[in-house]
């Protein structure tokens, strides 16, 4: 008990420091990332960083659904595939600009996300996870068999790198890196604002207790669908990013392993936190690269990591319960102060 208190104390101090100087810390990290390519201009290194960025986006998408709303999806590779296929088909065959194409991809994924969200109103828990798993596999099989649209198993080759105003963004001129950086920042910002908004609080209420949330007048059906749609759209955009990074997609790219990888990132980093997504993605994407020499053993280790995490730290690496007092918004604080002042 004593030990716990001590740890809590340390944690409190650490949190207080990081919280007080959070703006500076964020700025420093941001500057570091902006100048990073000029320090390490190694292409391989940059590719890995971009890949991590893509998976951060994907994890953020799933986090909305799994972390905040508490609906576990085992088929998010399906949304990634929809985004990747929609954008690359439009770019390759119809000469769309990448950004317009990925927007269309997001809309398509959003609509399909809404359809997939409908069963979530009827079934819950494990059953919902199973439906999403089936959904992921069906999307993969569709991509394989709908040859006219997706080119079947041959996949889509030579996906061009995106361009802005005639300037092509690729790994060598750091364009792709900065695009990834901006995307990650925008998506994080969006998720941050969403979580802090009324919608975000409704989602968290659903996760904590569906019944209580209904009692509080939250339209559960509406918010669950919203979570599905937003999550699908973010993942679809991640998918478009992925397709331009690799330059080639085929149905086998988006298998069950990808879904579990995204879910593992969310869980490892800490469900329902934003910072956790970064940590999770860095560990799980960099780990296979760093441990390339381990050959087959690295997949065994990957499994061991999952099992150990669940056993000893199921809330994720950064998913600690905050020991800081609950932060009140400014207006509430003023009101509380006023009330307290009245009492005194």
């Amino acid at each position, binding site marked *: 008990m004593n030990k716990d208190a001590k740890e809590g104390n340390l944690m409190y101090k650490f949190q207080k420091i990081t919280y007080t100087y959070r703006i500076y810390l964020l700025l420093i990290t941001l500057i570091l990332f902006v100048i990073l390519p000029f320090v390490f201009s190694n292409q391989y290194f940059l590719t890995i960083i971009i890949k991590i960025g893509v998976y951060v986006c994907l994890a953020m998408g799933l986090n909305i659904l799994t972390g905040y709303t508490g609906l576990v999806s085992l088929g998010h590779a399906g949304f990634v595939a929809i985004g990747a296929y929609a954008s690359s088909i439009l770019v390759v065959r119809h000469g769309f600009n990448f950004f317009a194409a990925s927007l269309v991809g997001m809309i398509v994924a959003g609509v399909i996300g809404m359809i997939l969200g409908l069963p979530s109103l009827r079934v819950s828990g494990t059953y919902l996870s199973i439906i999403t798993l089936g959904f992921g596999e069906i999307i993969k099989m569709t991509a394989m068999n709908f040859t006219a649209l997706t080119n079947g198993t041959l996949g889509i080759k030579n996906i061009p790198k995106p361009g802005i105003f005639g300037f092509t963004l690729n790994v060598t001129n750091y364009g792709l890196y900065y695009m990834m950086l901006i995307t990650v920042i925008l998506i994080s910002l969006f998720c941050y604002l969403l979580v802090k908004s009324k919608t975000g609080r409704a989602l968290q209420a659903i996760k904590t207790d569906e019944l209580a949330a209904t009692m509080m007048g939250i339209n559960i059906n509406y918010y669950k669908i919203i979570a599905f749609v937003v999550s699908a759209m973010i993942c679809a955009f991640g998918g478009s990013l992925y397709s331009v990074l690799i330059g080639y997609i085929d149905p086998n790219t988006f298998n069950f392993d990808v879904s579990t990888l995204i879910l593992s990132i969310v869980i490892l980093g800490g469900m329902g936190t934003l910072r956790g997504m970064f940590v999770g993605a860095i560990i799980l994407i960099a780990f296979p690269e760093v441990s390339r020499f381990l050959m087959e053993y690295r997949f*065994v280790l990957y499994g061991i990591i999952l099992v150990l995490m669940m056993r000893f730290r199921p809330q994720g690496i950064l998913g600690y319960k905050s020991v800081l007092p609950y932060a009140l918004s400014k207006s509430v604080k003023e009101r509380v102060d006023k009330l307290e002042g009245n009492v005194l």
Partner: protein
Amino acid sequence: MIVQQIFNGLALGMGYALIAVGYSLIFGILRLVNFSHGAIYAFGAEMAMIFIGMRFGITAGIVTAMILTGVLGICIDKLALEPLRKKKSKPIASLITTIGISNIITNLLIVFLGSEKRNFNNIFGDGSIKFGNTVLTHTQIMMCLVSLALMLILMFIVYKTKIGLAMRATQQNSKAAAMMGINVDFVIAFTFFLAGVCATIAGALVGGYYQIVYPNMGFMAGLKAFAAAVLGGIGSLPGALLGGLIVGVSESMAATFLGSTYRDAIAFIILIIVLIVKPNGLFGREGIKKV
């Protein structure tokens, strides 16, 4: 041709049913989808291949593999899942753990045995019986017979023995069962053992049917068997059998009328439709929603 395809589908479905039993047993007791079951099935098949190859003889080889796989099941429960239960972790934690375990088992098999497909001796011989245009191989017939026998044995264990009574009690309410003096941990471990044994029999039969085994064989088969289990009503043994057969036959029908490439999708489409229309499956009991 349709009759032939139905028979092919039934043999295929029997394979799914045998794997589905494992999902059902564990889900019945723990309300947990054991994603590592496909890997356990592959492990059982590989072990059976190794022990039969070591001149143990077919029966002794399969029995050794059954015991070994059963012990693996117990180890999984004791090392990874029981601590989670004791901590009262969320269901998602156990689910992820089983995905991790599946990763570990499959890849350890690949490390030690290699990922390539290997020959599994044909246990039942090559012969076949002809009815007009329809050909039934001995393997197909034996597969159906052995599966049915296994189902009957399992039903006997679950419905007629003391341990079966304990299993059903734990299934209904593990707390109350513990108060009645049932050793719940032992019952769960026994269930894992039973699931492992079934998986080995499934592995040996299906491996013998196609005459190939490889570490990744459990992945697709596992997912489809899972669909079968859900269709039949997860947690119910006759349901697993019927679900397996339905999935097998509809797969063969899809292959016949739509083309072989659509057959894999059909299992998942069935799965989703069942979950939306009748989440408890054909034989499943109505779940009690606690408020």
